[in-house]
């Protein structure tokens, strides 16, 4: 076991982690831990753009952007945070350009902008061009640009170090962060990173679904590490299903395709979104479009022999436009489906995409241990966190924005905290939980297989807590997850070695997914209303009287060692926007 000491430790090297690292490395001795290599992070898979009211191509302002974000989140957004997001968006984009990001350009040489779902002129009048983009690989360019600047700043990375535990120590009755425990993949060695400040930027948890745009590695590691140590998780029932995933595979096809003029059609060739969203049509918010697609499918207007998908039609767009603006996604259609988007519509279905919920933070990125109390020295930013700027449904292009705005804020706040704070003394046997977990899995002779349990979990989540939910389906999921959690105790792995043991890694990841799936389903069961990404067929309306509040889920351990989830609620911050019925 090795012990390292840093002022600031960042967990995760995607967009939020590296944006934070650029700031904190300038100000404090920083280490960045990632279970991958930085450039492998899933920020790189984001396609369509990053929202900012630059007004380079038409009239726009940050107040309209704030409103769209709040409306898009079905009024569960904390409005003070949304205002910061929209205001700081402009400098965030300009900062990236100055760091070298090759945005597409207008004829004047300024950053070009295009339309995206839910982003509108003057509070919903018509779509507005707000998304700053680099072809359909904006996330790739952000990830590369941030990595390039980390190289420039000399950021210290620990690649393929998997953080398994968050060390929490009570000082004068207040929970403090003391550091993290990590597992070095190459050697199997356990490392303690004692740090004055820890920032989680470890991404989402989409792999508990089967059809998902998420990478294999998005297993909610940061959320699970904090949750296991008694910290709450906020709004976990809210998960976004992106309307256009490649049929059956879930690979993302950007909303930018519809921003460029692409149209969704059912088996009769009908542009069905006109029925559901007369103004914004195909560019309504993602929750609305995904529900509309499934409504078409359920009512027998889906495509194919099983009627289980619809088409994304780009055939009316000039091939030069597809080549210039959407080169990657058209290539995905060719590679994985063998079809030519110039002439053929692309079969698509909604795909599990983004966790709106996560580790609760305030606008400085400080993690909360309840509705109001900050955990000194602990920060989170990006998809792992819940600020909440996305509320019940995130708008497209607001996540690349979120990681830059709140990654930067967390990086500055953590480094500044480390200047004034002392190291918190490590608990006795700081590695004990990780050692136990690793040894148990390595020595287990159980009969259950990781892949079997994971597959059953994913199928259960797809069937029961996806776009449409009812009390019955959620209860089915809760029961199934409980069964799988029992069976997980009997799981064993085949690779007993120390070197690059990815068999062990996958077993640990599955444990995280099971914990988080349980939180998600339990939170969803209690929310007896429909809002944003959480749609209950048995409660089809939004209920602002009883549910205009954030869910806070806590892990409780009884005296007998039994685990349960306690749900509490937190008020939504409302400033200038009164909740209205949401129409597109």
């Amino acid at each position, binding site marked *: 076991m090795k012990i390292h000491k840093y002022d600031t430790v960042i967990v995760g090297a995607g967009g939020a982690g590296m944006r934070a690292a650029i700031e904190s490395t300038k100000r404090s001795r920083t280490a960045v831990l990632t279970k*991958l*290599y930085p*450039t*492998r992070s*899933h920020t*790189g*898979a984001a396609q369509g753009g990053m929202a900012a009211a630059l007004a380079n191509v038409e009239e726009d302002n940050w107040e309209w952007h704030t409103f769209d974000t709040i409306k898009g989140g079905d009024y569960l957004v904390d409005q003070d945070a949304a205002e910061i997001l929209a205001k700081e968006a402009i400098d965030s*984009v*300009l900062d990236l*350009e*100055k*760091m*070298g990001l*090759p*945005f*597409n*350009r*207008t*004829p*004047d*040489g300024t950053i070009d902008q295009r339309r995206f779902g839910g982003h509108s002129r003057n509070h919903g009048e018509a779509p507005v061009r707000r998304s700053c983009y680099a*072809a359909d*690989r904006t996330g*790739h*360019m952000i990830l590369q640009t941030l990595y*390039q*600047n980390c*190289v420039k700043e000399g950021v210290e990375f620990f690649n393929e170090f998997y953080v398994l535990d968050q060390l929490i120590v009570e000082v004068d009755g207040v929970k403090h962060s003391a550091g993290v425990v990590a597992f070095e993949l*190459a050697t199997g060695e356990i490392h303690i990173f004692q740090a004055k400040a820890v920032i989680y930027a470890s991404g989402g948890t989409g792999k508990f679904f089967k059809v998902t745009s998420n*990478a*294999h590695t998005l297993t909610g590691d940061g959320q699970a590490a904090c949750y296991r140590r008694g910290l709450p998780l906020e709004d976990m029932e809210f998960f976004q299903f992106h309307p256009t995933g490649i049929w059956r*595979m879930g*690979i993302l096809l950007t909303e930018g395709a519809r921003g460029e003029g692409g149209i969704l059609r059912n088996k009769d*060739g009908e542009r069905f979104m006109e029925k559901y969203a007369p103004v914004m049509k195909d560019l309504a918010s993602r929750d609305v479009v995904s529900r509309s697609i499934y409504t078409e499918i359920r009512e027998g207007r889906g495509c194919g022999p*099983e009627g289980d998908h619809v*088409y994304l*039609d780009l*055939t*009316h767009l000039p091939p030069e436009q597809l080549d210039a603006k959407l080169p*990657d996604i058209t290539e*995905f259609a060719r*590679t*994985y*489906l063998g*079809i030519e988007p110039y*002439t*053929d*519509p692309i*079969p698509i279905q909604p795909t599990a995409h983004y966790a709106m919920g996560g580790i609760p933070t305030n606008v400085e990125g400080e993690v909360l241990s309840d509705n109001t109390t900050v955990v000194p020295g602990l920060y989170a930013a990006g998809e792992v966190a819940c600020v909440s700027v996305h509320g019940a449904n995130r708008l497209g292009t607001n996540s690349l924005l979120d990681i830059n705005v709140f990654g930067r804020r967390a990086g500055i706040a953590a480094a500044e905290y480390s200047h004034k704070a002392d190291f918190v003394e490590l608990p006795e046997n700081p590695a004990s939980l990780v050692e136990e977990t690793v040894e148990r899995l390595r020595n287990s002779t159980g009969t259950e297989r*990781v*892949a079997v349990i994971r597959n059953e979990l994913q199928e259960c989540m797809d069937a029961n807590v996806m776009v449409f939910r009812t009390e019955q389906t959620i209860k089915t999921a809760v029961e199934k997850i409980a069964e799988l959690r029992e069976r997980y105790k009997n799981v064993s792995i*085949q*690779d007993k*070695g*120390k*070197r*690059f*043991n*990815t*068999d062990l890694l996958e077993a640990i990841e599955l444990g995280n997914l099971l914990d988080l799936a349980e939180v998600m389903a339990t939170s969803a069961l209690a929310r007896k209303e429909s809002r944003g990404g959480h749609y209950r067929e048995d409660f089809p309306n939004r209920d602002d009287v009883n549910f205009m509040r954030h869910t806070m889920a806590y892990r409780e351990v009884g005296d007998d060692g039994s685990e349960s989830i306690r749900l509490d609620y937190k008020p939504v911050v409302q400033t200038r926007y009164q909740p209205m019925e949401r129409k597109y």
Partner: protein
Amino acid sequence: MATPTMDKLEALEADNGSHLITVTFRVRRFNPEVSADAVWEDFQLAIDPKERVLDALHKIKWELDGSLTFRRSCAHGICGSDAMRINGKNRLACKTLIKDINPEKPITVEAIKGLTVLKDLVVDMEPFFQAYRDVMPFLVTTGNEPTRERLQSAEDRERFDDTTKCILCAACTSSCPVFWNDGQYFGPAAIVNAHRFIFDSRDEAGEQRLEILNDKDGVWRCRTTFNCTDACPRGIEVTKAIQEVKRALITRRF
């Protein structure tokens, strides 16, 4: 709607993944915890030929042998984790469909060449990233920053578009015979990333990067075999980019 070529779509849709075929995967195994020698191991799978080689590797790992070790993440050709040598050619396992590489014969899968194998298909990426870091892969400017964005014409932006696509998967560098024989050579990927900045109209360190690549281990080692261009899963014209850097070194114009 434009009338789609319905035959193709119907064929796609009628095929419900039920046409499994038996394929042999011949995988180069190496685990120094077990043995100092690398060996070939065969796995037979019943698999849909429209699946990816990565799906096959997962099937082996999840159903047959949990110790099979490889890197992967996004599974659709964006993260660059799973470059490997498949039937003797460098490709991404997640972008290679089984039907496209003749599944009637055994499909060979081995680690990329020129970098030390650590376990099975996992290699030491550090020398590769060191070469990348050595070419100053970041925008360098002087003078005061503008308050708004730097202006760049669409044509100037287009000039280096191709080399911005690089995902640092190492498929090009590890397909290069010069790199195999001499690990000191920067390799195609580092040159591609130097190109991305040398030809960016906003950048002011082109001369410095050219001097770095003028070194004995720089661009002049390239023998123009086009292996790198063939290997690039992003379709970057790698050899052309290297030639453009060579030309810039001679003319000092870029």
